[in-house]
Structure formats: structure tokens, C-alpha cells
């Protein structure tokens, strides 16, 4: 058991930031992101210590995170739409208040991302922020690689348009 803990501890260290960020960008709340991210790793640990073999632990964690976010909105009946005002209010970067740096690129991209289609937002984050491969993303989304490539392309187009609107 100690050995399993050690192994899973490494997995935790490796993916905690990515999974948290992935969830945070979907829920825009530190508290909710923390709760859901904890649940992701609790579920992962339950399966891991039960001896389940993972083909790709990263894909598994993202899938769980994705499902938990969906459940979060479904069960609570929350509106998924994130307003521009709301996204600018919550800045999750540690110590940012102290630094008092106005980072316009950060805000711009975040707001733009929050305003594109949910599926597009997801593939942009997975591909360009978390730097997952196309096969990995396909697995998480349960889509073919071809479909995933098309989605990524359209997502980037959509994001670019949204950015242009904000810069205009």
C-alpha cells in the first residue's frame, strides 16, 4: 500500500495544477474548483489502490474532471454561462493582489475563452494550455482523431474572432 501511495503521490504532484486549472476555467470559482479537483484525485486514488490498470492516467483524470463539472452544473442546475464581469473579478493567480499588475493579455484571453463554445474552450485548453496530444484529447472527448483536429481548428478560429472583437 505504501508503494501505491508513493506512486499515486507522484501522479498527484504531476497533474494537480493541470486538473485544477482545467476545472477552474470551467467553473470560475476557486472553492468549487478545489472541491471538484479533490474529488477527481480521490476517485483516482480509489481506483488506483483497488489495482485498476490505467492505459493513460492523465486521460482518466481529465475524463473524471470533465464528468464532475458536468454533474456539478446538472445537479445544481447552475448556468454554465460565465459573464465577462465575473471572469474579470476572480483572479486565481497566487499573490496577484499584492503585485497589483494589470495583465491585459491574461484578462483578454481568459474572457475570450470564457465566451466561446464550451466544447471549443475545452479543446483549446487541452491542446494549447495543457499540451496534450491529439490522440489523448480524442480519448478524453471520446471522439475520433479527425473530428478532434477539426474541432481544434474551429475552436482556434472562434477564439481568434473573440479576441479580435475585444481588441477592436
Amino acid at each position, binding site marked *: 500500500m505504501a508503494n501505491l501511495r508513493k506512486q499515486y503521490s507522484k501522479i498527484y504532484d504531476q497533474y494537480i495544477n493541470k486538473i485544477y486549472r482545467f476545472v477552474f476555467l470551467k467553473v470560475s470559482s476557486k472553492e468549487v474548483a478545489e472541491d471538484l479537483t479533490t474529488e477527481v*484525485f480521490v476517485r483516482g486514488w480509489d481506483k488506483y489502490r483497488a489495482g485498476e490498470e490505467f492505459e493513460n492516467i492523465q486521460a482518466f483524470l481529465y475524463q473524471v474532471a470533465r464528468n464532475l463539472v458536468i454533474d456539478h452544473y446538472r445537479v445544481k442546475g447552475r448556468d454554465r454561462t460565465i459573464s465577462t464581469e465575473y471572469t474579470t473579478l476572480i483572479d486565481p493567480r497566487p499573490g496577484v493582489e499584492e503585485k497589483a499588475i494589470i495583465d491585459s493579455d491574461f484578462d483578454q484571453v481568459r474572457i475570450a475563452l470564457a465566451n466561446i463554445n464550451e466544447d471549443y474552450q475545452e479543446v*483549446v485548453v487541452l491542446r494549447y494550455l495543457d499540451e496534450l496530444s491529439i490522440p489523448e484529447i480524442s480519448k478524453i472527448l471520446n471522439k475520433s482523431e479527425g473530428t478532434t483536429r477539426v474541432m481544434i481548428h474551429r475552436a482556434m478560429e472562434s477564439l481568434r474572432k473573440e479576441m479580435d472583437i475585444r481588441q477592436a
Partner: protein
Amino acid sequence: MDKELINKIQILKEIKPRNEWVFSAKQRIFEEPAPVIHIGSRISWGFFLKPAFALPVALLLVCSTFLYVSNLNDIKTVQLEYDIKVAQISALAPVLENLQADISLARENMDKVNVGDLKTALKIKENAGSVSKSGNEIISEAKRIVAQATSSDESGDRILASVVDAEKALKDYQESYQMFVKRMIEDAEHYYLGEEEQINLENAKQYYEEGEYDQALIEIYRISYPF
């Protein structure tokens, strides 16, 4: 163009969870649902739910109710006011006795912990926060009741003396906790430390100097605990 956009997306990597949460969430994930035995079940419960503290809290509520009643003009009589004052003062004595007993117990438990037992040390950390917070709340509530309910009679003076004793016990406890953290740091100085662990140790010392004892303990824990 795409590269520029990708670079902008990657700025979002600045989004990071709080370090303290990352650490505590990890602990919770690996936590076994076993009963806490190292430092006694009384301390490991929610502070106000502990038997010893449930009584003080209940008594304080009773005292507060008396105070409320005493403010109702329509039932105010000299005799009633006198009875209420007596009841308030009488009720405060066991509250403060129990508080002192619990603080002493928490302190004894802390003194028993072996320096290398980091898991128990973390439980001590959690309890230290509860003891201080709840202790302060009870003391200030007791002071408020004494200030409102008594004039300069003897029983009021006795209770005030008990409040002072409780405050001293709490202060001693907090000093013990400080010494406890210091012991943990001194012990860690004898470890063979790698580069990252050395940084943890320096962080711990820094937090200690700043009076952030909980954080100091977390840094020490990071050096050694084999998840």
C-alpha cells in the same frame, strides 16, 4: 498568427491552485478512515462537539439567555435581577474550569508527541488552531458576561480571577506550541537534506521567525513525510 495566439493562451498557465490547498488536499486523499488514537479522541473532534467543550458552550448560551431575559423591562424586578446575576456567575465557574482542563489536556498531548512523529505533529497543528480560537471565544464571552452581569461583588471578582487563569493557560499553551514547532525545526536540521528539502527547512525557519508556526510545521512535514 497562430503562434501569437497560442502564446497568449499559455499565459493562462499562471492559474495555479493555492499551495496550502494542494498540500492539504493531498493529505485528505490519503487519509485512512481510521480513528485518531495518538492524541486522544477528545481533541480530534470538532472542538465545540467535544464533551468537555459542549458543556461550556451550552452554559454560555444559558448565561446569554439570562442576560437577554434580564433586559426585558416587563419582568424586571430587583429580586429577579439579583437571582439572574447569581445564576450567571455560578454558571461561569464550571465553564472556565472546563476550559482550563481542556487546554491542559491539549498541552499534555502536545508534550507527548515524539519529535519525529510528523503525522501526529500535523494533528497537533490542527488542534492548536481550534484550541486557540475556541479558547479565545470562550474567554471573551465570559468577560462580556462578567462585565454586564456583575457589579463589584466578591463572586464577580472570583470569576474574573478564573478568566485571568484561563487566559494564562491559553497563553502557556500557545507558547508550548511555539516550542513544539521549534523542536521540530531543530530536529529537521539533523536530517541529511537534498537541495529542495533544504529550501523547505529554510522556509520553515522563516515562517517560524514570522510567527507563522502552522506554516513552519507544514514545511517540515514536506521534508519528511513519505506519501
